[in-house]
């Protein structure tokens, strides 16, 4: 048994180090992607870091079953589940406090006006995304916001590329229609 132990323990060390390295690289590479996806899936900014952390904890537990090339897809799918749970606790829309805090600015940004404009754009986009069905929303997030190809999105969503293409067309049409409605209401 001692011989077995001496053989096994170094292996355990190698496995641990490799796992640690992979986890660290994954967080470095995909944290922003997960965070941004969560935001567009309706998670408030104040909660996005926490939900991203939950996502990576699930990823860590399942690491041994995830192919290196499928990490992004796994993280996105996990993020969608996590966002769904988060939405039970928090409203989809940004809170007034969040918007106010952003508009007040903290002096670090070069232009408060630019920030306000960006914030308006995000509020507008989130309100339009909120009206889309889940199927259409995730396609917009992956293809239009994360700039993935339809093939990449299809791989992540486990649907044919043709389905992604048709959903993207529908999603864009609905977004455009929503935008037209908003413009009319502003006149």
């Amino acid at each position, binding site marked *: *048994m001692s011989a077995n*132990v001496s053989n096994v323990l170094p292996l355990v060390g*190698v496995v641990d*180090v*490799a796992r640690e390295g992979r986890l660290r690289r994954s967080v470095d590479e995909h*944290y922003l992607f997960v965070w941004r996806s969560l935001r567009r899936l309706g998670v408030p900014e104040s909660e996005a*870091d926490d939900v991203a952390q939950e996502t990576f904890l699930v990823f860590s537990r399942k690491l041994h*079953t995830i192919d290196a090339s499928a990490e992004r897809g796994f993280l996105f799918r996990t993020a969608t*589940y996590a966002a769904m749970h988060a939405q039970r606790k928090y409203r989809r829309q940004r809170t007034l406090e969040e918007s106010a805090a952003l508009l007040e600015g903290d002096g670090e940004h070069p232009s408060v006006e630019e920030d306000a404009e960006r914030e308006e754009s995000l509020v507008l986009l989130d309100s339009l995304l909120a009206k889309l069905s889940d199927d259409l929303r*995730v396609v917009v997030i992956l293809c239009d916001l994360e700039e993935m190809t339809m093939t990449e999105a299809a791989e992540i969503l486990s649907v044919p590329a043709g389905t992604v293409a048709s959903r993207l067309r529908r999603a864009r049409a609905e977004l455009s229609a929503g935008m037209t409605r908003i413009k009319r209401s502003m006149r």
Partner: protein
Amino acid sequence: MSELDPLLLRAFSAARAERPRSGKGKAQTLAALGLSTATATAHASAGAAGGPLAAGGRLLSRWPWWGIGVALVVTSGAVLWAVDEPSAAPAVVSAPATPLASSEADTIAPVLTVDQLPNAAEPPNVANGTKPTEATKAAASTSRRPAGGPALAPESTALATDSLRDEIEAIERASHALSQRRCALARSHLAAYDARFPNGRLRREADVVAIEIAGRSGQIDRARTAARSFVAQFPDTPYALRLAPWLRDDATEEAGSTSVVTCIDAAD
């Protein structure tokens, strides 16, 4: 995309540019994963490339020198105590620094076995530091064999094939097949796991994998019932997140939804 409203395109750009306001969330995530944040990327590449030696070096570099001194004093004390009371169980357990030749290893009582590691299989009878004989090893293996479970070959009992590591590997095969969207294969691996570890320590994981297989292969009602039963039995389980697709009220539509990865052999 060019046909989209300019306002919408601007909103897309704003969304692409959005970032967390600080790196705190990422740092906290790394910490929650048990990874230090100071030299994250450097450690990742050095650790992966350097193997256990690099890991050992890292550990040493993190230890203050006074810490090593304290450890030496404690270790010396433990050795002296062990010499005074040879019949007592060793106070300090450690792995040999270098691999032992098998003949040498057989003459030395093990200070730590795989079976004694936390969460490992039921420990064999090595009370009072006595060397386990082949008979005690066999007895331990027999006692660990689940009642009614399949009899194991003598060679495999000698290698303690029913250790936690084997159990993990068995269930990993099912999980891996599932991640490859091969439900039929995952199901057969899970059946092999069930047969080999009827009272396994990863029973809950196995149950969750079974629910995932059912859900991903189109047996939505079955997955839904099992998922709800599971969560009712273990209300605070972290597995609830994995089972979320089948805990929703609209779970019957999940197989065709984008949030569930269906198997490519779902019809099996």
